């Protein structure tokens, strides 16, 4: 039995359960992707429920969706796509060991995330004002559109965008803590781009969900 790797020969930044940095990085990437698979299925249910009811109430969903604010939705799409770009650039700077660029890009991404939330909250508050939030307070004026189905549409809308919003908030938390670690040269992130890459993957996934949510909720064809 030959000894392959003693503790002493381990390079810096390798956790004790791993042998090499390569192995550690690969492991983290696989773990992250496995987690993203979970996220796909997580949102998948909402998309499926949406598809079933859209199929069942095609014309009613068309009429109800006119209540959504296309302009705000569009702005949010642009914001998210842009923040995704800055996140990709942040990963690039991390790979190139450019701390300054990385911090700047992370900051830009954070701005995008906050911007998204601001627009979203404006949108939500309008819905609350019009009593379009599902629940006992729900009101639907148009008597030719069944209120229950309108409420169903808004339940799906709030469930999907709300869950997406929760992901954005989690994104803000992890991106800002990453930025703090990077700024402080914490050993976890110094010289190791994998944490940035993992958080980047998460953020791109958030973007990915919105890419589907936007046309499905805001752009229903008649």
């Amino acid at each position, binding site marked *: 039995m030959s000894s392959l790797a003693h503790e002493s020969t381990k390079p810096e930044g390798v956790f004790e359960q791993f042998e090499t940095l390569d192995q550690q990085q690969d492991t983290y990437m696989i773990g992250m992707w496995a987690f993203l698979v979970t996220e796909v299925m997580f949102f998948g249910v909402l998309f499926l429920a949406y598809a079933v009811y859209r199929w069942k*109430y*095609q*014309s*009613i969903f068309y009429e109800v969706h006119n209540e959504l604010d296309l302009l705000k939705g569009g702005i949010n799409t642009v914001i998210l796509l842009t923040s995704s770009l800055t996140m990709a650039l942040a990963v690039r700077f991390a790979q190139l060991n450019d701390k300054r660029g990385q911090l700047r890009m992370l900051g830009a991404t954070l701005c995008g995330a906050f911007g998204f939330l601001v627009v979203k909250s404006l949108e939500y508050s309008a819905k609350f004002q019009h009593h379009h939030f599902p629940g006992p307070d729900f009101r639907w004026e148009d008597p*030719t559109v*069944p209120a229950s*189905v309108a409420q169903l549409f808004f339940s799906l809308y709030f469930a999907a965008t709300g869950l997406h919003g929760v992901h954005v908030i989690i994104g803000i938390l992890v991106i800002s803590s990453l930025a703090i670690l990077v700024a402080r040269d914490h050993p976890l992130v110094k010289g190791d781009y994998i944490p940035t890459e993992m958080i980047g993957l998460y953020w791109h996934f958030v973007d990915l969900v919105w890419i589907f949510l936007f046309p499905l909720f805001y752009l229903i064809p*008649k």
Partner: protein
Amino acid sequence: MWNFPIAPPQASNFASEFDALFGLLTFLTIFFTAVVGLVVLFFVTKFRRGRTANRSAPVNDHLKLELVWTIIPTLLGLAVFVWGAKLYIQMRTPPKDAYEVFVIGKQWMWHVQHPNGVRENNELHVPIGVPVRLTMISQDVIHGFYIPAFRIQYHVVPGRYTTQWFTPSKEGKYPLFCTILCGTQHSEMGGYVYALPQPKFSAWLANGGNRFQKPALTLGDQGKQLFDKLACTNCHGTQDTLRGPSLAGLYGKTRRFTDGSSVVVDESYLRESIINPYNRITQGYEKTMPVYLYKKQVSEENIRQLIEHIKSLGQPAAPTVAQQLESMAVRPAASSANR
């Protein structure tokens, strides 16, 4: 306590075939369990640790053997699948002229209505030798309508009609259960099914069922009254008008909608258009129909009455219950069972 049967009574057209299939599966189960059990016991005793046995040249892989025990179970499984599917399709395909009984499930009772208006609660009287079709709907949560002696069971779902059918074959009193957990008194949501010979059944029906009250009106006639009371006739006349399409002869026809889709008019569609008229708008019409509030203005029972009435519109007079029974009795019971 010491009275324990090992099989439920066979009291419907499905029972004997079901039991045959059940018997086959039981045979296969016992056979394979015995084979595996005996083989394992044999190996355990023969190759028990410390016992002399020929252990040379052990086999660790054997492709042919693997294929054999992959393919044989697959084929056996498929054979059972085909038989089960055949019987299932038969169970899901009621004969066209079955005697129709309407069932409402609610927490925690079964409400049954016969076409001539006779009602019963937690009991069901059915004629022997006549195919009976149950049209079921729930008023609240999901229930399951289950008669073990008939080997039939189907869920009773709110918001949608479900059906099942059977031809009772043996006189008797059999338990009836709810099989989907529906709340506190779930286990008490049951009763008995009485399979009666036809003359007895006709007499029972004619005398107003258990309450010995002759019902004033059939389901369809009750529907007609309601149809007038809710002022449906104002818009739905014998001819299509600007305000509303005629409902005469509607049942079974294809209906086109404003969004381009279409549907063959069935009970579920009629039900939907009574309580949610704006879900789908018939081509050429506007959203002008008033909304009748479910459970407040129209109960589940009312909807059924209206549907029965709408079904009869534009049709030659529906046969009376007695005529229906009579015409079915002429046919040999077997032919109705195997359509």
